[in-house]
């Protein structure tokens, strides 16, 4: 050990001990505080989250517009935020006893979303998906997409292991496997994919960027720049969503953010969800 490194250990030791304390119990804050770090964590298991302040937001029923959610499910979501000055990473943790990541008939997938106003300013749009001429931006993560990104195949047997299929016409022997003719024919029987519907896959990321200006108006953003990563943990989900900072989010500034959680096992999808109102998103000052 050099003299210099010994000095560092002696001088910084108490500071690390303090950090260690905070890692065990990071501060709980009444608002979401985005702390600044040079590098954004993209994985919920990243140790960078350990000292990020935690905001616990109670969730409300979406019971204002039909179809409504009439029985509450997920009670709250724990949120942490880290920014590098350009982008912001949110980590959302919530309790969920069941893994729901199979998008089959009559079943739904666990999911979460982060929503911010599209424009900066004190006059924020309605937290329920924005309002006419005052849009919101949303980044949406879902467990079924995460399963595909994590390696689940794109066949019916990956969803229904016991399914048997006699024949698909585009897999006839007369068509060369993986040829353009074959893919073109397969698309004819997958109209949502043929039309470029982002819901229809195949997927390379578990999140989608969306915009909305009122209930029922949700549509994909021009591009999805955000990234995400969800992990199943002991009592629920831990999901990181990395997106660009909301407009006007200056150091020391205060903006708005909202969150939504869908419990697939409770038949939640679309407007049937647990959600927050606007929550203050504060950036650390001077960074």
């Amino acid at each position: 050990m050099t003299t210099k490194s010994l000095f560092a250990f002696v001088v910084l030791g108490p500071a690390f001990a303090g950090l260690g304390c905070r890692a065990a119990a990071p501060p709980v804050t009444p608002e979401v505080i985005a702390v600044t770090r040079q590098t954004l964590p993209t994985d919920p298991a990243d140790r960078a989250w350990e000292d990020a302040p935690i905001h616990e937001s109670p969730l409300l029923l979406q019971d204002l517009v039909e179809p409504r959610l009439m029985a509450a499910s997920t009670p709250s979501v724990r949120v942490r935020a880290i920014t590098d000055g350009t982008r912001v990473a949110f980590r959302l943790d919530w309790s969920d006893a069941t893994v729901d990541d199979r998008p089959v008939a009559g079943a739904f997938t666990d999911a979460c979303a982060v929503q911010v106003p599209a424009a900066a300013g004190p006059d924020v749009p309605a937290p329920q998906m924005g309002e006419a001429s005052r849009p919101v931006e949303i980044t949406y993560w879902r467990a079924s997409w995460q399963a595909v990104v994590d390696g689940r195949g794109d066949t019916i047997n990956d969803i229904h292991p016991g399914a048997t299929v006699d024949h698909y016409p585009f897999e006839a022997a007369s068509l060369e496997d993986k040829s353009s003719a074959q893919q073109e024919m397969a698309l004819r029987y997958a109209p949502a994919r043929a039309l470029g519907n982002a819901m229809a896959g195949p997927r390379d990321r578990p999140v989608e960027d969306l915009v909305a200006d009122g209930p029922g108006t949700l549509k994909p953003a021009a591009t999805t720049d955000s990234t995400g990563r969800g992990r199943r943990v002991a009592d629920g989900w831990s999901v990181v969503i990395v997106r660009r900072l909301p407009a006007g989010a200056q150091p020391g500034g205060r903006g708005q953010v909202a969150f939504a959680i869908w419990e697939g096992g409770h038949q939640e999808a679309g407007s049937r969800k647990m959600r927050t109102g606007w929550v203050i998103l504060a950036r650390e000052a001077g960074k």
Partner: protein
Amino acid sequence: MARVYNWQLGREMSYWYPESRPKRQFAAVFDTNKCIACQTCTLACKTTWTSGKGQEYMLWNNVETKPYGFYPMAWDVKLLNDLGAQTWQSGAYPGRTIFEAARPGERALGWRPTDLDYTNPNLGEDDCTGRIDAGALMQLPHMSWFFYLARICNHCTYPACLASCPRGSIYKRSDDGIVLLDQSRCRGYQECVKGCPYKKVYFNPMTGTSEKCIACFPKFEMGLQPQCFVNCIGKIRLAGFISRHDQVRADNPIDYLVHVRKIALPLFPQFGLEPNVYYIPPVHVPSPFLHQLFGPGADAAVAAYRNLPNDTPLAGLLGLFGSTEQVIATWRQQGDMTMGYDEGKREVVRTPLREPVHIRAALDAARLVMRTNCP
């Protein structure tokens, strides 16, 4: 909710959107008495539209055996049970429709099948309770009879799928009333699957969107009947346009069967969707069952059908079923011949009331061979 008029109920009812009838309405008549459940219609549809990944158990057209066949499982009896008793009074339905019986937070009374409910398309096929001559093995409410019920999307005037979609991804075309699901807009919430009482919207697990019958609109726009109609072996189907209930034209074959003669009836009209596929009820099925399926006009329709040998216009018109791929816009009868005309008033088909019969001697004397009846 808005107030709209439903002629099948004989009253106004509540619906999510105001009344907006299309300029013309796709409609069909199915003669249940001629269906043999060969499923050629099912395969004609499947090979045309739903042979892709995620569509394996998607049957836009299916034929099920009633009373014990369902696809998906229990699609009708479950909703009938949830809706409660349905009673008609003097030809009108004062009870609650699925829109009027919607639970808080919902746009219609509905339920959503699970994947297991789709795993047995042939459930109950050809089931009745036993051989009549051998006596019944058990006692059930419906003894020793069954019939085949072919089903497609009803392209309803008041679609519950359309009402249920919070995104407006389902629309009804103003030119022909065909109900379509926008595959670029759907996000797979399955609200339409839940809302449609006929369960004719299907979720595709591979694309994450829902899909449904499109009435073969590329054909229909060309004046041609859909695939399940023209491939029907039993010639049970006729597709066309139905006029508004207050603008009936007797020379329109669908109007004649539905509005003039009232021999073709909607399926579960009490649900309140004003469905546009009409059924000539089976003549051998107990009246209470027919009432539940087709409403209070069932007895008169059966009587009219039994009287066909004495009813030249009706018998002649039924002969046009399955006789041409063209959509028959108008029809006319002259003597024993029934003619069908397209939109341009061109004759597209001509059928005799009775096919000519030729009897040939068993022995071909010229060739000195016996004739056989091999097909």
